[in-house]
C-alpha cells in the first residue's frame, strides 16, 4: 500500500469502525431476528435433539413426550419458559395453555408419559402438533416473514390468510398508497412554487426561498405539533369555520386520513421544492427563446422543452419525498387514526407493546427491502440519480 493510501485508510478507519460497530452490526443482528428460531432449541435442548432425529411420520418416540414435559417443567420453575411459550403461541394461539397445562400436570403423569399426556389433552396425540414442534427446533424459520405477508407455514405447505384475516398486505398497500398520494401532491404543489421562485428577481426569490427554508429547518415534530393543535375540535380552523357560519358544528379533522395527508405534505413539500428549484435555476432561457423563435406556442414550449428539462428535478424530489414517506412514523402516529397507521407504527408496536421481536424484525426487513427496491428502480429510471444529493 502506498503511503498515501495508508494515510487515507487511517483517516477513514475511525468512522468506518463507528459505523460498523454502532450501525451495521446492530442492523444485521436486528434483521437476523426475522429468521432466527432459537427459543425452542435453547430452552428444550433434549426434546430438540429427539425431534430432529425423528422422521416426522406418525408420532415421535416416547422419550420425546417425557423430555418435553420435564424440560418444560424445569424451565417453568426457573422462569425461563416465557420465550418458547410466546414463540409457539404466536404460531398457534392456544399452545401456551396447552404447554402450561402439561408442565403443571407433569408430577402427576405416570409413565408412560405419552398416554398420560394424550389423556390430558388429545392434541398431544396429533402428529401435526409434533411436526410443528419439529419445525420450531430451528435454527431458522420463515414464520415471521411469511406472517408479515399474511401467510403461514403449515404441515402441507404455505397457506394464505383469507381476505378478512389479512393484516399486513393491506398495511403495506396502505403505506404505499399514502406515500404515493403524498408524493404526487408534493410534486404538483412544488412545481409552480419552484418555477415562480426561479423566474422572480433575486431579491423576491430569496424572500420566497426563506418561506420554504424556515419550515424545512423546523423539526418534523414541531410542525406536526402545529397541525395537531390547529386541527383540534376546538382549534383555530374550526373556530374560523364556525365564526363564518360555514359549518354548524365543529368538523372532526384530527385523527383522520385527511390530517395525515395534510401534515405529511406540509412536512415533505420543501424536499420536493428544493431540488426542483435547483434544476429550474440551471435551465438557460435561451432554450425557451429558441423554441419561441421557431414558432412553438406557449403550452407546446412547456410540454416539449421545459417539462422534460425539469423532469430530473421532479424525479429527484419525488423520490426523496416517497422514500421519506414510506418510513414515516411520528406524523401518522400523532394526527392519524388507528386506520391511518403505516408500517413503521407496527414495527414500533411489535418492539414495545406486543414484544414480538421476530415480527418487528420481519416488518423492518420488508420495509428496508421496499426502500432498497425504490432506490434501485430510481437509479434505473432517473439518469444520474444518487441518493442523498438533494439536501440544501
Amino acid at each position, binding site marked *: 500500500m502506498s503511503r498515501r493510501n495508508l494515510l487515507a485508510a487511517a483517516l477513514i478507519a475511525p*468512522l468506518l469502525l463507528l459505523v460498523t460497530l454502532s450501525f451495521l452490526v446492530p442492523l444485521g443482528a436486528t434483521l437476523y431476528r426475522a429468521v432466527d428460531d432459537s427459543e425452542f432449541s435453547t430452552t428444550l435442548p433434549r426434546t430438540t435433539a429427539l425431534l430432529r432425529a425423528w422422521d416426522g411420520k406418525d408420532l415421535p418416540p416416547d422419550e420425546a413426550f417425557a423430555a418435553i414435559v420435564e424440560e418444560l417443567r424445569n424451565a417453568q420453575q426457573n422462569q425461563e419458559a416465557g420465550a418458547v411459550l410466546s414463540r409457539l403461541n404466536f404460531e398457534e394461539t392456544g399452545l401456551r395453555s396447552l404447554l402450561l397445562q402439561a408442565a403443571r400436570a407433569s408430577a402427576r403423569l405416570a409413565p408412560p408419559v405419552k398416554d398420560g399426556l394424550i389423556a390430558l389433552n388429545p392434541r398431544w396425540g396429533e402428529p401435526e402438533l409434533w411436526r410443528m414442534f419439529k419445525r420450531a427446533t430451528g435454527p431458522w424459520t420463515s414464520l415471521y416473514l411469511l406472517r408479515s405477508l399474511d401467510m403461514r407455514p403449515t404441515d402441507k405447505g404455505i397457506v394464505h390468510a383469507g381476505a378478512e384475516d389479512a393484516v399486513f398486505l393491506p398495511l403495506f398497500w396502505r403505506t404505499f398508497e399514502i406515500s404515493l398520494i403524498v408524493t404526487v401532491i408534493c410534486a404538483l404543489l412544488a412545481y409552480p412554487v419552484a418555477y415562480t421562485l426561479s423566474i422572480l428577481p433575486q431579491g423576491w426569490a430569496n424572500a420566497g426561498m426563506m418561506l420554504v427554508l424556515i419550515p424545512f429547518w423546523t423539526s418534523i415534530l414541531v410542525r406536526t405539533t402545529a397541525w395537531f393543535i390547529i386541527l383540534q375540535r376546538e382549534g383555530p380552523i374550526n373556530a374560523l369555520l364556525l365564526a363564518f357560519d360555514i359549518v354548524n358544528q365543529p368538523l372532526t379533522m384530527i385523527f383522520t386520513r385527511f390530517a395525515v395527508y395534510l401534515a405529511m405534505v406540509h412536512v415533505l413539500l420543501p424536499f420536493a421544492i428544493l431540488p426542483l428549484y435547483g434544476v429550474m435555476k440551471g435551465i438557460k432561457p435561451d432554450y425557451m427563446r429558441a423554441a419561441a423563435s421557431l414558432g412553438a406556442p406557449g403550452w407546446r414550449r412547456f410540454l416539449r422543452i421545459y417539462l422534460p428539462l425539469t423532469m430530473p428535478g421532479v424525479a429527484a424530489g419525488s423520490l426523496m419525498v416517497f422514500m421519506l414517506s414510506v418510513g414515516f412514523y411520528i406524523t401518522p402516529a400523532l394526527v392519524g387514526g388507528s386506520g391511518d397507521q403505516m408500517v413503521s407504527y407496527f414495527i414500533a408496536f411489535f418492539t414495545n407493546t406486543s414484544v414480538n421481536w421476530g415480527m418487528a424484525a420481519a416488518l423492518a426487513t420488508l420495509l428496508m427491502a421496499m426502500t432498497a427496491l425504490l432506490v434501485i428502480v430510481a437509479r434505473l429510471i432517473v439518469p444520474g440519480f444518487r441518493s442523498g444529493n438533494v439536501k440544501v
Partner: protein
Amino acid sequence: MAGTAPSSPARKLSAGRLALALVTALILLFLVAPIVVVFPLSLSSGELLVLPTPGYSLRWYEDFFTSSRWLSATWNSFVVGIATMILATLLGTLAAFGIFLGRFPGKALLLAILSLPMVTPVIVTAIAMYFSLSLVGLGSTLTGLILAHTVLSVPFVLLTVLASLQTFDQNLLRAAASLGANPAIAFRRVVLPLIAPGVATGALFAFATSFDELIVALFIASPGQFTLPRQMYAGLREFLSPTIAAAAVLLILFSVLLLALNEFIRKRAQARGASPSGPTA
C-alpha cells in the same frame, strides 16, 4: 444559485402569470401559516389552545422556564446535540479527507456504506439501536443516544465536506509538501481553511439532526434522559397544555437561528469565492 432571472418571451403580466403568482403565494402561505399560528397560541392567557385568545401573557413561557422537566430536556438536548456535533464533525471530516486522498477502488461502495444510515428508515435504525445498546449496557444512557445520533448525522458531514473538497486543488498539497509541511500541518494550515465552510455547514446539520431527532430518542431515552422533542411528544400524548405551544415557538426560533447561521456561512463562502457548501455533490 447566482444569476439573473431569465426573461422569458412573454414577460408581461398575463392572466396566466397572475394565476401562477397567486397559486405560489397560497402554497407558500400553506407552508408558513401553521408555524405562524403557534405564536399567538403560545402567548395566550387562557388554559386552552383557542383562537382568538382570551388575552395575552407570558405565563406558558414562565411555565416552560420553571418546569424541571422542560429544563432538564433542554439541557439534555444541548448536551447530546453538541457532543453529536463534535463527534460527527471530527470523524466525518477526517473520513472525507481520507476518501478524497485515497487512490483505491470501491470508493463509491465505501461512501454508500458510510451514508447508509441516511437512507435507512429511521424506525429501523431506532429498533436496531434499542436492541443492541441495551446488550452492551448503553440502553437508557445519554452516551447511547449520542452514539446513535452521531451515526445518523455523520453522512451529512461526510457529504458536505466531500462536496467542498471537490473544488480543492491537489497541487496545493504538493506545494505544501515541497515547502516542508508534514501532512498534519498541511491539513491544518492549507486544507482546513479552504474547506471550513463545508465543515461548518456539516457541523450545523449534525447539530440540527440531533436536536430534532425523536424516533431514536423514543426508544432509548427513559424519563431522566428526555430530550426536547421527546418531552414534547410525551406532552402531546398526555395533556395538551399551551406550554407545548411555547416550547414549539422556542424551537421554531432556534431553527430560524440555525438557518440564519447556515445562510451566513454560505454567503461568506460565496463572497470568498470558495465553493458553495451543501451536500449537492
